[in-house]
């Protein structure tokens, strides 16, 4: 076989093997989708069937049935949106000051921000449970969101700083010469250039807030019930009703999956930006 033909064969085998590996890797998710379309009886069929009559009953149940997860979705939306909005609103100016202005004690503050990311969540859950119960903020939105700041804020600042640092310094100098003051320079010149970075940060903060479990399971209750907690409770309630479980889980994960697909290029860039510039969460 000629050299070129051998190479092509090798590439095809390579491609085939990697595609197979890929399918194998996402099999759990694919299978979950399949199971979610199965009826109660079908789910327990053995050996598991791949060809069957699909049904949307499980999805209908997840949305409108007795254990509808709609209120959970709403809870998660409120928590994630408010957390993200406030976090990004606080982090953007802080990251700008950090990355591009002369700040007294920059080193100390920077180290402090980095250190707070190192705190394991259980280390905050214990005191927060005690504190929130004393203040009466258990099972409240404000209580949970306050706790969520502990991991989203330092992360957002850290990520935004790396984006802000990339802009050449002459930008501010040119703007100052054009008689733009500090605030207007930030608004008209700097922020538009980090739009991508702000978008990526927003996505990550939202994802982390939506998927959070430890704080959610302990600090929520009947009023505040995010989807992650609902899913966990599901297992004990619906023993082997995997069809319903899969459908509910997929619906619960739909927002983050949608965001993941929509912003995939930004997410990959965000992961690598973080990797290039220094360690931290996610």
């Amino acid at each position, binding site marked *: 076989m000629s050299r070129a033909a051998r190479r092509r064969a090798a*590439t095809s085998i*390579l*491609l085939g093997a*990697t595609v197979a*590996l*890929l399918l194998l*890797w*996402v*099999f*759990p*998710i694919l*299978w979950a989708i399949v*199971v979610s379309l199965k009826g109660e009886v079908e789910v*327990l069929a053995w*050996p*598991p069937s791949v060809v069957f009559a699909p049904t949307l009953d499980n999805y209908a149940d997840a949305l409108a049935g007795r254990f509808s997860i709609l209120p959970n979705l709403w809870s998660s939306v409120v928590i994630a949106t408010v957390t993200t909005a406030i976090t990004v609103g606080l982090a953007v*100016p*802080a990251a700008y*000051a950090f990355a591009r*202005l*002369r700040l*007294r004690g920059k080193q100390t503050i920077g180290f402090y921000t980095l*250190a*707070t990311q*190192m*705190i*394991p969540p*259980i*280390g*905050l859950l*214990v005191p*927060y*449970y*005690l*504190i929130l119960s004393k203040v009466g903020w258990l099972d409240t939105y404000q209580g949970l969101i306050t706790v969520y*700041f502990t991991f989203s804020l330092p992360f957002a600042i850290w990520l935004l700083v790396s984006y802000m640092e990339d802009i050449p310094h002459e930008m501010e100098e040119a703007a100052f010469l054009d008689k733009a003051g*500090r*605030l207007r320079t930030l608004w008209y010149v700097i922020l538009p250039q980090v739009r991508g970075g702000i978008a990526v940060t927003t996505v990550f903060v939202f994802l982390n807030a939506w*998927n959070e*479990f430890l704080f959610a399971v302990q600090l929520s209750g009947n009023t505040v019930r995010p*989807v*992650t907690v609902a*899913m*966990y409770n599901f*297992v004990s309630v619906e023993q*082997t009703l*995997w069809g319903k*479980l899969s459908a509910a*889980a997929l619906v619960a*994960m739909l927002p*983050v*999956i949608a965001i993941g697909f929509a912003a995939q290029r930004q*997410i*990959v860039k965000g*992961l*690598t930006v*973080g*990797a290039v510039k220094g*360690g931290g969460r*996610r």
Partner: protein
Amino acid sequence: MSVAAVTLPSRRRRAGLLRSEQAFALLLVAPGLIVLLVTTTFPLLYLIWSSFQQINLSMPWVTGFAGLSNYAQMLNDGQFWHALGLTAIYTISTVALQLVMGLGLALLVIQIPAGQWLFRVVAILPIVLAPVVVGLFWRTLMLAPQFGMLDYATRSLGLGSYNWLGDPELALASVIVIHTWQWTPFAFLVLLASLAALPPDIFEAARIDRANALQRFWHITLPLLRPAIVIVVIMRAMIALSAFAAIFAATGGGPGTATQILNLYAYRTSFTNLNFGYGSALAVSLLVITLCVSGFLFRLRTARTR
């Protein structure tokens, strides 16, 4: 020339210009910093304080200053050491597996001429899922005895049926697999991007210098990837140390204490046994361990870049 008389007042104004920039910077940082201080430092101090107290909500009459007794109890606690060992095994094996598999996949995919984007898109899927959902899916669909797909696979291959999550000897391996499944794509994506960013001309130079594929990988690719690898290790180690949701959903820390990493042990002590004092001490020890590990890994990073 009376230079002093000319410059003295202007030096004051000059200092004013610097001070106005610092004031502006402070104004921008203050709100975020205050929120951070209030939400993290205060509870952290409370945690440390509680670790020196006796707080047991199942026995509310037991209160008061405990001194170091919680910590003494910890050092004598077999479960603590067991949990510590499990944490070490869990962290090291998941990070190592993620790194090796992520790198392997990246090396495979980088050679594919077109369609790399498909792999990137698919890789994002496990990452964006909530760990609790991942744990649930694996517990029910994949690893359930008799009905799970893995069982189906092993039975079809004649390897028999196992209780993947209920058997104490298999449970730890199972949760390691679950964690690795979810996070290897992260390592894959980062390493793939780093590989793509390597300048092609040095590889061409190496081929002219008669280096074969393995030599090129060992002497050029790997050293150039070192910064990315170190970052991946740091980030994944931090996540592994604080892993909770997936294990909790899959095994709850069991069977018995087979998958009870330190994180879960602290949780169980505080919220199941309601012994918050001792739980705080356990949490503090995990905090110390995390800081030490991250400190060590960071130093490794700066040492390598020198």
